């Protein structure tokens, strides 16, 4: 007897502290779930092969590329997106502030993914070296900055830690 696989699934995901319960297409990518269904459009899409990292979010504390996961794989997990980085008081996080003061962004399209990769690094390693910072964002492509100022923005937050 063959069973027709189900095409959708009910999931419950905690995103930036809010719990969302949704029926999602089994094949829907996590990034499309975040952008199109939760309308959290800070998470971006820059490729279709997992190379660019614009879609990077935290899944249970780990930086992951949300285009390489299905939405259903996030069932029961805690997801953090760029919208969840700044504290609630309207201030920027030190990393966000550092990106601005070091001119670590131009068009800003890769920035959310960069911030998520960098913040995951800083949570594990508060004082990264330049090489460690470069390695942490190796999976994030930026076409504007040449990475120079991004690396400085990350390491200088570390120096203040």
């Amino acid at each position, binding site marked *: 007897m063959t069973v027709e696989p189900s095409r959708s699934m009910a999931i419950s995901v905690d995103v930036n502290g809010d719990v969302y319960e949704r029926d999602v297409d089994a094949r829907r990518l996590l990034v499309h779930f975040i952008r199109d269904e939760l309308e959290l459009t*800070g998470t971006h899409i820059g490729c279709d092969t997992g190379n660019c990292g614009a879609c990077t979010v935290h899944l249970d504390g780990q930086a992951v590329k949300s285009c390489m996961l299905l939405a259903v794989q996030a069932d029961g997990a805690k997801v953090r997106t*760029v919208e969840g980085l700044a504290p609630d008081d309207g201030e920027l996080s030190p990393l966000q502030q550092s990106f601005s003061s070091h001119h670590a962004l131009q068009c800003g399209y890769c920035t959310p993914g960069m911030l998520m990769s960098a913040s995951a690094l800083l949570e594990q390693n508060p004082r990264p070296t330049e090489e460690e910072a470069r390695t942490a964002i190796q999976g994030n492509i930026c076409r504007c900055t040449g990475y120079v*100022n991004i690396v400085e923005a990350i390491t200088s937050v570390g120096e203040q830690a």
Partner: protein
Amino acid sequence: MSTTETGTAPVELQKGHVGQSIPRKEDRRLVQGQGIFFDDVRRHGMGYVHFVRSPHAHAKIVSIDVAAALALDGVYGTLTGDEVAIQTDPFFEMSTAPGNEIKDYALAVGKVRFMGEPVAAVCAATRELARDAAELVEVEYEPLDVLVDAREAVKDETVMHDDAGTNTVWSGVFDWGDWEGAKAEAHRIVTIEELHFHRFSSTPLECSGALVEYEKATGQWTLHCNHQMPGVGAIWMAPALRTGIDKLRFITKDIGGGFGNKICLHPYYVTLCLLSRKLNRPVNWTEWRTDQHTANAHGNERWFHDVEVAVKDDGTMLGFNVKALDDCGAFPRYEPLGCIIWAQVTPGCYAWRNIRVDFTQVTTNKAPVSPNRGYSRMQHLWLTERICDIVGTELGIDPVEMRKRNYVKTEQMPYETPNGCVYDSGDYARCLDIALELIGYDTIEERRAEALTRGKLLGIGIGSTLDSGTNNFGQSTLLNPELQFSGNNEAATVKLDIFGELVVTLGTVPQGQGHETTASQVVADILGCSPEQVHVRPGHDTFFNSHAGFSGTYASQFAVTGLGAVKGAADALRAEMITLAAAVLQAPEEAIELADGFARIKDGPPEAALPFMALGAIVNANNAFLPPDFNPTLNHRFVYRPYFGMVDTEKKTGKLTLTYATQIHACVVEVDRETGVTEIVDYAAVDDCGVRIHPQIVEGQVHGATVHAIGAALYEDFVYDEDGQLLTSNFYDYHVPHALDVPALKTGAIESPSPFTPLGSKGMGEGGGGGIHCICSAIQDALKPAGAPIVYDSCNPYHRVWSMLQDPESTRANVKVVPA
């Protein structure tokens, strides 16, 4: 590391906020993920579009059957080339006959001419469903012979566009100075049989796309999009759609990079316009990365054949003669403009006076080209830099010596080139000295010897380039005298509103260049307030009515045209604010100053001061007391128009562009002798763009342009196989530099103000591909002990370097030196 010094004396400029690296206004929203990119815009009932694309590079379309797609639940509708051919006219072509007979439609009509060409479009309720439905569209093709090599295409044995009857888009000879005389004067002629500038693009991280809405009642289309040159986009689209230009409203907010690659989006956008009208619903198309690589915008590929260089024994270069063959892919969309844009930098940085270029552009069965950072000049500057290094190598003259001997000198500025362009200012030799100092040129021989002990061949290279900014569109008439384009313009509006808010509306279409910030600096200095008090509206909107015919963000010009317009509008507002304040305070206008957010009497009592809010309120809401003949608006739209004069279509000369920023790059590479693996171990970029409005933004542009060039020089190449299949259609095979690939970049700057611009600034940002030139130069230098091969291609991935190590002779056979 960075170093800055001032070159020639700056023009009179009041520097307050201008010249400071103030925090960017754009950053706060972008670091919080609150930027508004086109794909973030949603509309009720919108459908998602997916294109059916050709798997063939060249084929007849026998039939298209959309029935199975339409039968799928949730599919809203389809569009095919047959409908496009009925409902639209082909896009306007800029070439002369017969190249202008090419018919270019929004979707393929009758024939496909490159892999990935859109053949049909499907619109459905979700992205996934649209993609599924597109797979159900059945297209029958009859494959045809494929042209992937311009050198074959030019023979016309296979013709891609039957209407034109030839693959040649444009062809012509440029002959400036006296080439025959230069040959007679020369001691030697150095010849190079063939050089190749490869095909790549800047691949902005945000792909192209739009959300298009149609309003049936008025026939109005609204495009929430990322087109970087909407004025020209509308010139292509409106006639094709048989509508008026004001029926196309372009709205952009944040754009995820453009680099020229978002200029030729009109075929896609016309398809979306037709679909939104046909289905009577908003439609979104977001390009997939693979589709962008395969079918959107590549940079111009160019061959240089039979190069002849007239030189003296001391290395003085008198001129050159070359046949250039440009490959524009399947359709000449922005082309043939690339056949003339290079002429903005005809002599490169050098003082040779006799230049002859026989230029031909052809179509091939590859993706159409579009302007790409450094558009058309980069290819030509690569040629001049290759010539300089090859001549130096053959004559045994040091590359630094070659350049210093041949550079245009700072005391010659402003310098008129052989084709009538005017280099406004600069000091190339000084920039080179700074670059060499930054890379430690004086220790290079010791480092070379040390590297050899590790099996590495070390080399040093120089790339001297110009970034020409602010186009004179009259140069198009040097290609086709019938074209009705000349000059340039950009608009901006500055107003003081009722509550004292200063609002700036730009005509430009920023994609990361920080226009909101730099515009606020200029306005703040003119109106005597802080940049925080100046609100610059993000993005572009046709309905702001603050744009001009050439509005957009392209071709290195904002610091001149965009800020020139902002300055003009702010100056007009300032004059009116002073007149108004003088009337209210009953003082002569000369006594009024604008400072600290007030219009006040200079050295007057504290109460003789009006806050901006008072001025705004008087004009907008409390104006009964103003005399009848005084009608201030406090709302000024200004169109900045650089003066060029007319070009000479007979001699093909004229002022093709207004400003010339300099970039001198120097680098040190190490080549692994065993594998050909090449690593950049030291890199310096020195930039001179005149007065810098915001030095941090300038340096950021230098970093970005440099890393684009590093990627292009070592990795990025759109390679096609003989069947016209693209082999590098994603970021696995098309490797762009990642963080670990980029060396520590050292930058330097000098400021040679432009005498021709409102702020002494020059356009910058494209760079001139300096990194490509200097890496080619460094690889050639490194390989000198290994048979001295000649670098003949602009892209040198490991396999090509390894081939040169294996067989230097065949590259050397490309070059000859003969006595004149």
